[in-house]
């Protein structure tokens, strides 16, 4: 900005340059939401044409209009199911956050606990939840508890590993400074390690949000009918048995929308917490 005062003859070009840059920024801002929408409209149109031109029966591939009809027509059923799946997902995410971050802090504070338990956290993570879920439902009476356990198993690990990384990523000079001022380990944890770990934790949280939805859906599919098994995954399965493919698509769209919503909400939370100080949330001026 100050350069323009020094260099008068060049000023108009700088203005033109700046105007051009501002224009391209505006275009990019619009394109950011317009382009994905156009792609979606195009895909739906192609889908519709494929169904119409090939005269595909609706029990094999329903047209977009039919899926929309199912989405609005079956809304009451689907919404109830979405609430159930959503509740399991959010509860699992909450337990994953408490359990993941809690374990990370425990591991960080006590090396012996970490050495004893960390391998099992890894084993729990790498074993596919689809393979563990049937066993869980044999021993766990309550479907809700079983589903929570499944969702927790897939969701806690990203929180645990990223928080652990964050707790160990403290600026070593700050650590020295805390030592010089005679900080207790709790002061160091609370005032230094936890704030340092916050950006890492939030990164893990975003992954865990998506994973807890996956965990909830898988758990529902395994838990099957009966009890509380009327979540969205159950609706997909049920509609499949009845060759109601349109409702399968409708339920699938709601699951996807829930995933997007969780991701967006967690991204917003992350931005709110970090915008004042962390590099990831700071807009550069140029």
């Amino acid at each position, binding site marked *: 900005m100050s350069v323009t005062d020094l260099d008068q003859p060049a000023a108009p070009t700088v203005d033109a340059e700046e105007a051009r840059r501002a224009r391209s920024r505006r275009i990019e801002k619009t394109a950011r939401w317009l382009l994905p929408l156009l792609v979606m409209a195009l895909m739906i149109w192609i889908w519709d044409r494929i169904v119409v031109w090939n005269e595909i029966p609706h029990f094999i591939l329903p047209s977009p209009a039919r899926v929309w009809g199912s989405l609005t027509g079956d809304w009451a059923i689907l919404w109830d199911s979405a609430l159930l799946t959503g509740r399991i997902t959010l509860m699992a995410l909450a337990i994953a956050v408490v359990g993941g971050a809690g374990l990370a802090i425990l591991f960080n504070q006590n090396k012996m606990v970490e050495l004893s338990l960390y391998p099992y956290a890894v084993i729990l993570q790498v074993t596919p939840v689809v393979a563990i879920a049937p066993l869980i439902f044999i021993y766990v009476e309550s479907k809700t508890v079983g589903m929570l356990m499944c969702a927790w198993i897939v969701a806690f690990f990203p929180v645990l590993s990223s928080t652990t990384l964050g707790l160990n990523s403290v*600026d070593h*000079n*700050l650590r*020295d*400074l*805390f*030592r*010089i*001022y*005679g*900080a207790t380990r709790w*002061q160091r944890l609370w*005032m*230094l390690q936890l*704030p340092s770990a*916050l950006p890492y934790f939030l990164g893990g949280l975003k992954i865990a949000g998506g994973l807890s939805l996956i965990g909830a859906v898988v758990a529902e599919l395994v838990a099957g009918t009966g009890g509380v098994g009327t979540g969205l995954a159950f609706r997909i399965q049920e509609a499949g048995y009845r060759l109601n493919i349109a409702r399968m698509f409708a339920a699938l769209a709601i699951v996807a929308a829930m995933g997007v919503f969780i991701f967006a909400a967690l991204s917003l939370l992350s931005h709110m917490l970090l915008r*004042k*100080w*962390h*590099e990831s949330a*700071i807009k550069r001026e140029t």
Partner: protein
Amino acid sequence: MAQIAPFAERYELMRVNAVDKVFPGNVQALRAMSLTVREGDFISLLGPSGCGKSTALRLIAGLSEPTSGRIEWSKPRAQGDLGVVFQEPTLMPWATVAQNVYLPFRLEGKTYASVKDEILEALKLVGLDKFQNAYPRELSGGMKMRVSIARAMVTQPKLILMDEPFAALDEITRFKLNNDLLDMQARIGCTVIFVTHSVFESVFLSDRIVVMAARPGRVIEELHVDEPYPRGEMFRTSPEYAAHCRAASQALEQAMEAAA
């Protein structure tokens, strides 16, 4: 605020007594270092990289233990008696300027309200009282360093350790901070041990220059800069300053030869 006593009348603050420091792998970082620090001294540790000057500072700060020899304090040391400034500003990015300066008090368990005046005073001393609610990322490199200095001085410590604090700054900022540092030291009346590899900086700031050599790190010579404080821009251009710089440069050259 304490006044700095004339050189001959100063009490001993602490002493580095025949200290050796050997790192794993048999690397001798420091050999037989002895240094007596008196209240009000401004001591520079001057030497090439690898001469153990930062190691010496860490030993004095209590961040590591000597392999042999002792660090002896005349009086038992309390929590706020020591301030440190590192080469990096080392601020907490999630906290405001005022919160960063509050840190030493916070770790002592004092409430913000009870030390608000001291924090503001320290920020005034470094000329940043208008920035108390800014976050570190909003400040320039020199301003961040000033916050770091304010944090080190806020407890009115007896001794401040500075590890090449201005090495990363441009020369104009560095000169300004050198001037201000002497001002602040005079006002608080603290003792400073200042690690640097700049001859000019050491001559301008200190009354004693400890010249060190590398491999193994050791003290080669101690020079006295018997020029009165306050020192300002006049001193920087005086013949005496030039003479001291020449002497320090020669000592440093010897140190380099001794290491080679």
